[in-house]
């Protein structure tokens, strides 16, 4: 099981479009992927779940990945997040 804390750096936080991008990427892996924020845990493959986290700039989320392809998944999701943060 891999864990990683990510700080939300972009001004607008994880809104609709980033949520779609994250969920779409997470769906490519067989591992279980969860995002935890303030004790709330959602499935990273769920676009609606991610949106409900309403993760704003400056907040921290924790990625928990467990499964056969966890390393690839973590690597890919890191890339997705840094791309989201770059967008502004």
């Amino acid at each position, binding site marked *: 099981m891999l864990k990683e804390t990510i700080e939300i750096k*972009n001004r607008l*936080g994880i809104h609709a479009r980033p949520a779609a991008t994250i969920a779409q990427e997470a769906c490519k892996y067989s591992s279980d992927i969860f995002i935890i924020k303030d004790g709330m845990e959602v499935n990273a493959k769920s676009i609606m779940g991610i949106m409900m986290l309403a993760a704003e700039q400056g907040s921290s989320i924790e990625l928990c990945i467990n499964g056969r392809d966890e390393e690839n998944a973590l690597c890919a999701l890191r890339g997705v997040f840094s791309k989201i943060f770059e*967008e502004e």
Partner: protein
Amino acid sequence: MIIVKGISASPGIAIGPAYIVKPDNTVIEKRRIPSTNTVWELRRFEEAVEKSMADLDASEAQVKSLLGSKYSKVINAHKLILKDPLLISAVKNKITNEQLSAEYALSVCVKEITSRFENLKEELFRERKYDLADVAKRLFENLTKKKQNKFSAIKEPSIIIAHNLFPSDTINLKSKNVLGFATDIGGKTSHTAILAQSMQMPAVVGLSDASLQIRDGDLIILDGETGVIIINPEPKILQDYKKEQIKISEAEQSLKNISSLPNETVDGHKVALYINYDPRRDVKAWDSFQSDGLGLLRTEFIYMDRFDPPGEEEQYQIYKKTAQKFGKRPVTIRLADLGGDKITQLGLGRREKESNPFMGCRGIRLFLKYPELMFTQIKAIVRTSAEVDCPVKIMIPMVSYAEEIREVKKVLKEIVREFSSNGIIPRHPLELGAMIEVPSAALSLDGILPEVDFVSIGTNDLIQYLIAVDRVNQEVADLYDPYHPAVLRTINFIIQGCRKKGKPVSICGEMASDPEMIPFLVGLGIDILSLSPRMFLRIKSVLRKLNFKDCANLAQAALLMTSSEEIENLTDNFPLSSD
């Protein structure tokens, strides 16, 4: 006979019997299934999911070809919801563990998720529940197999009457048996309205409770020009509308015939006719207009309905695609005119709610306050200008001081230099122009002209600022008057000022698309009229009937008049040559 006033969503007139789309009031029964049947019930649910996904794939392709990829993203979000474990796994769990029927399990889960959405702080987030509702409806229909196209039962050409239509319904209306549609809710810019326009199907929306007043088979006149429907019209009115319908189709035909003729008056005075362009809409018919260029690309629409401003790459792709349609003809890109009535939530930090947004931070003011927005947009424009054959022009909205233009110029120069050093070089010099829509800019035009290559008059705002009337405010909207002597004189002042300095001047506001105003504007010596696509051929046909000398005389007479009434009379009675 009953007349109901709504909002015109798509022009044209349709006459035919009503076909009522009944609202879906199915109550879902709480039904338990025997534990031996849960596997079968799961399978039924999975089949409905698969079927819904196939439906969405089909509409995605349809929307993409009809409206472009921007709209098909809406469908993509629906596909993600359909794959969302928060919904799908939850329903399956309920079926297995609580032995609920698939329908009931789905309705419980949708209700739960919806209430969680409703508790979110931001409105745009809360509105996601409608996307969930559209997906859920699709699932229900595939579960109960009830739907199978609710429009297929239409036997004769009819007018669809519904409380509301989802965009997914609207696409299915494209059959020969649908003449037009009317709905109780919705606005002019809703996805449904935009779809209707691109399908060239007359539509009226926002009719409050009209769907309850109409019965199946009632004769309906749907007037998409003025936004009314008439239920069971009197014979006389029906006759008039039938004539009007013929007139419109004849006019459309004859307008098509003038497409290839030059944009000039009877006596050979040329006026360039440009087109205003909304980047969200990509209507194939517009490409057939032989316009002289793009006079106003309304880029602010790219910023609407989203949380984060569009990035450089996204904008570049849009501008490039648009500019390429114009070949070698000039393309004018207006810097986003955000603020005012085009409020947008772009997460620009804590913005105080303005008590007077039209006089507040909008247009170039907002860009100077949030320069990163301006940098991104100008970069995208400069990149476009290095890639396309046409001259690209940049237009600055809401200029009230010459300093504002100098600021933009500095930024533009810096960006061009930076790109040039990387080998990205504009193919034509990038021209910079100012919108003149604030009285202070009009009156100090001599200070502005040395800073710009061209000027464009934004009549909508100019009128509102000159008369000090908010055209959105119902209490005073009737004071908004393009015929006010002050308006005509100010426009004349701007045109003459530009002519003296040899700077081209255009008009891109609604006034340029008003047939009655054309003789006056032509008579003042306007170089370019930039028109809304809908009016392009109509205005061209007016121009081609005018005599320039008569127009010049009319303009001079109008400038001497002191009341709107006199001026309106004068233009009303102005003879067109071929009449």
